């Protein structure tokens, strides 16, 4: 059955709401509007306003409410319309959701799911195009996932809801319209493991979320040049599947990391650091990061495209590391 990423998310929500009366969805315009990205369209009609709660513009307020509801035994899904607005809720996530279990000595867990759209590429300019996955992945106590495929979009919500701790789900705005075959019966998704999306032997392209399609496209282009790239989709940014990362590098000895964050302080930097620590003797060439240029995102299309990671950039970075011999 062919489904879009958006539909997969929708179905996952409908299923979760149906299967567990503790689950509810709260966020701006999730109900009557149908969701800013139409993920929750129709759910209000199916589940009613107690389960699909249209929130006022109060990111901190309704995220904190999610923390409390989770503490109180419910299973809230908080939709923050986009990561850009999540800055307003960050305190509740970092100082609340992520910390309560530890600082209470294990007295309480916070089984909260927070979803948000992320990323650029739609000409929404400097305040609406952030990629901040790495910030969330920095915080102990959180689990951070970035479904990059339709199957993961379908499966990760259930896994996140089954998690006793807070899970942040990043949905890249460029993925909502992507379609793929899905099996009739939903599959459980093991969110602890990275996935090799394309096997290869010459170079490892490591990425996640919205950069996966570009990276796969680059891998195809490289194949045409005779460079056999392996593409690793991290899927879960915290905790990292270190084993999978080391495995691909041990195989190819060359690495390009693709990430839409700005280069300095990017999550790609974390992967590079990890390799410089733990796979140093496996590396045959400098690591390359393909990230966003260090500019607030410009509106004009040609500038935005120049600022974002692009297939051509991935290809040339891969060529470079394959060309670089010691």
């Amino acid at each position, binding site marked *: 059955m062919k489904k879009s990423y958006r539909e997969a998310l929708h179905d996952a929500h409908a299923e979760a709401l149906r299967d567990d009366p503790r689950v509810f969805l709260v966020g701006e315009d999730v109900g009557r509007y*149908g969701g800013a990205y139409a993920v929750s369209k129709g759910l209000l009609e199916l589940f009613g306003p107690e389960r699909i709660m*249209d929130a*006022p513009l109060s990111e901190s307020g309704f995220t904190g409410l999610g923390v409390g509801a989770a503490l109180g035994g419910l299973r809230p899904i908080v939709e923050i319309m986009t990561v850009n607005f999540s800055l307003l809720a960050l305190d509740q996530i970092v100082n609340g959701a992520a910390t309560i279990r530890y600082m209470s000595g294990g007295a309480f867990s916070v089984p909260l799911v927070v979803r948000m759209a992320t990323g650029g590429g739609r*000409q929404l300019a400097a*305040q*609406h195009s952030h990629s901040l996955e790495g910030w969330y992945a920095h915080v102990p106590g959180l689990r951070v996932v970035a479904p990059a495929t339709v199957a993961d979009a379908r499966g990760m919500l259930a896994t996140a809801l089954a998690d006793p701790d807070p899970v942040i789900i990043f949905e890249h705005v460029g993925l909502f319209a992507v379609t793929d075959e899905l099996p009739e019966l939903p599959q459980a998704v093991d969110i602890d493991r990275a996935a090799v999306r394309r096997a290869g032997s010459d170079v490892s392209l490591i990425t996640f979320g919205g950069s996966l399609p570009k990276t796969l496209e680059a891998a195809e282009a490289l194949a045409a040049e005779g460079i056999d790239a392996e593409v690793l989709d991290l899927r879960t940014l915290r905790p990292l599947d270190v084993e999978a990362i080391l495995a691909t590098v041990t195989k190819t000895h060359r690495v390009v990391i693709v990430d839409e964050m700005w280069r300095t302080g990017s999550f790609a930097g974390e992967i590079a650091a990890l390799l410089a620590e733990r796979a140093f003797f496996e590396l045959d060439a400098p690591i390359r990061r393909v990230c966003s240029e260090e500019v607030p995102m410009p*509106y004009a*299309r040609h500038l935005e495209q120049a600022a974002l990671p692009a297939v051509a950039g991935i290809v040339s970075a891969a060529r470079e590391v394959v060309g670089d011999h010691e």
Partner: protein
Amino acid sequence: MNELPDKAGCLALYRDMLRIRRFEERCGELYKEQKIRGFLHLYIGEEAIATAVVMHLDQRDAVVATYREHGHALVRGLPMRSVMAEMFGKVDGCSRGRGGSMHLFSAAHQFYGGHAIVGGGLPVAAGLALARRRVGEGGLAACFFGEGAAAEGEFHEALNLAELWHLPVLFICENNRYAMGTALERSQSEPDIHAKAASYRIASEWVDGMDVVAVAEAAERAVAAVRGSGDPFFLECRTYRFRAHSMFDPELYRPKEEVEEWRRKGPLVTFQRRLEEAGLLNEDELEALEREVAREIEDAVAFAEQSPFEDVADLARDVYTPRTAT
């Protein structure tokens, strides 16, 4: 019913509103032609507010607006050419094509954006007002925002600071009854917005935002109050958005009849009728106005069309201020 200004005054009001209306209608078309991209939020239905408030401001004053700010920019005097070029993402745009529809700026016009984080402009306006007060020339900061912003914590923080510190801010709430798809009654336990100002001891008033003369009178009083006292004033203008929230909005949340009903109360249609009845506007004059406005718009479009895109080599320009400027 309030009294009409003299003929010239009336025609100026009508012309300013018409100019916004036709400009935005054209923008809507240009969006479909993909000349304009990203988010486009039309002000259609709300033109009376910007028109009748900004006319009372002068060069001492600062203006802060939201992503729905074409009208404010135009009445503030930003050349239509530079606004249109901005929406085209061209280098002659008022923000060099970096901002787009949501981020119009102009130093010459003391026009401080174009903020697309709901509520984010309010504290900024308070700071601009503080700076105005220090200069001591009677300048103020006029801050426009939607009723949706009233749920954000920053609304509350900014109102408190403005009154506590006696800052000359004119807060103008454009209450169009919806924040995206969320009706005011579903986002505020107290839906009377202007009453909120009282809880900060801020003088406030509400006015029919569809009646340009009423807004002009209220705004005149409000500006005088701020200049006279040095304290903030809160003006709520009750209005309605005729179009979708943005070009992505399927408008599932309100019946077509409701929109139709409000359209009949629209600021242009009602004012035009009133002027005609008072013998202040005849068909020839109306046609002449339409022609003049149409000419300006087509000139702006032509200008935007021929304006170049910024050189990609300048992508990183203006991330920081050139050091020589210090």
